[in-house]
């Protein structure tokens, strides 16, 4: 238990973020269906956000750096806007190929 306190949360979450980015990149690259590409792209984005927030984290007793937080907040909004547009385009594409 005490050995586990040696884990640096910043290191752990930065690594997790980069791993998410890598998985997302893989999926975006290889999936054939567009919806799956979008999901993977969002996982990739989450990886970037996690890396940024983990870098901003300064331990339990110090407040985190606010600038990456603002970046990520805006990033989430931009990501959801782009996702919404892409999903509507995909729906129309499927409708068009059905008929």
């Amino acid at each position: 238990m005490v050995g586990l306190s040696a884990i640096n949360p910043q290191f752990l979450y930065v690594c997790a973020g980069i791993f998410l980015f890598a998985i997302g990149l893989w999926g975006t690259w290889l999936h054939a269906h567009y919806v799956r590409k979008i999901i993977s792209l969002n996982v990739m984005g989450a990886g970037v956000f996690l890396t940024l927030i983990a870098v901003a984290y300064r331990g339990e007793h110090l407040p985190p750096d606010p600038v990456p937080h603002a970046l990520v907040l805006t990033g989430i909004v931009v990501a959801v806007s782009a996702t919404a547009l892409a999903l509507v385009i995909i729906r129309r594409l499927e409708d068009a190929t059905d008929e």
Partner: protein
Amino acid sequence: MNLLDGLWGVLDLLLVAVLLLLAMAAVLSSDRRRSMMLFIVFGLVLALVWARLHAPDIALAEAAIGAGLGGALLMATLRRDTHQQTDQFPQHPVVLWGVGVLVMVLGTAIAWGLFSVLPTVEQTWRKGAAVDAQLAFSGVSHPVTAVLLNFRAWDTLLELAVLLAAIFGIRALGYVRSAYVTEVAFSQLAVWLVPLLILMAGYVLWAGAHSPGGAFQAGALLAGAGILLRLAGYSHAGLPTTRWLVRLGLVAGTGVFLLVGLGLLGWGQGFLHYPIAYAKWWILLIEMLATVSIGMTLTLAFMGGIPQKEAA
């Protein structure tokens, strides 16, 4: 003390394990619906991670958008009439593994690069923090507040502009057919939930007035109400049926924001440089309109565009 740190360490490990498992399953699963469900749970766990990393604003945004609205938008692409919902990878397994290795090598390279610059970055930040602390004590918090408000206004304005661009794209695709069957039992449930969602949106907006964030999260809640109305059989999801009103609603947020900014400019202030005394009220007003715009935009995104007039 050490025990507490140890517990945080275990929690971190568990959260990261759950997060990575979810992401891998969501990307790798061959079933599309399953992938979407996993992605929604991924959003939920991500919200927990934001909370744990002292990012309450981002946790709220993630809960509203990542786990909530984003999931609903994804689900809207599912159609029951297409039976083929498995997504097999067309590539040869060698390609799959090869790209996997490549991506992991890239990830390692990024990690290596990042960790080699991180110490210097941190040092700079430590200095920055020291300056912040001094400013706070020397009574010049006024310009800092002004800068912060200013910065935040720009942020919100540009977010709104991006969202407006997205809705222009969606509207450009024309009208949609209605895609949902009305269920009577469901409409009764919706009647219960819609006011709750709207009330909650109002609350989140009000709470956001004295801490960053608010409009987007509140807008997502409004859109949730719109989606429920749509599912309950209201073909316009509670949006006005007159077209110009819809258009007005969609641009209201960005429009009023710009007008206020330009007005302040003409009045001799900086662009979006609110007089400090009224800043809170200006922000509340603008964010209220922004919330309406965002809610309408996301509802329209869920429906896939403006609904066609239904043949009665």
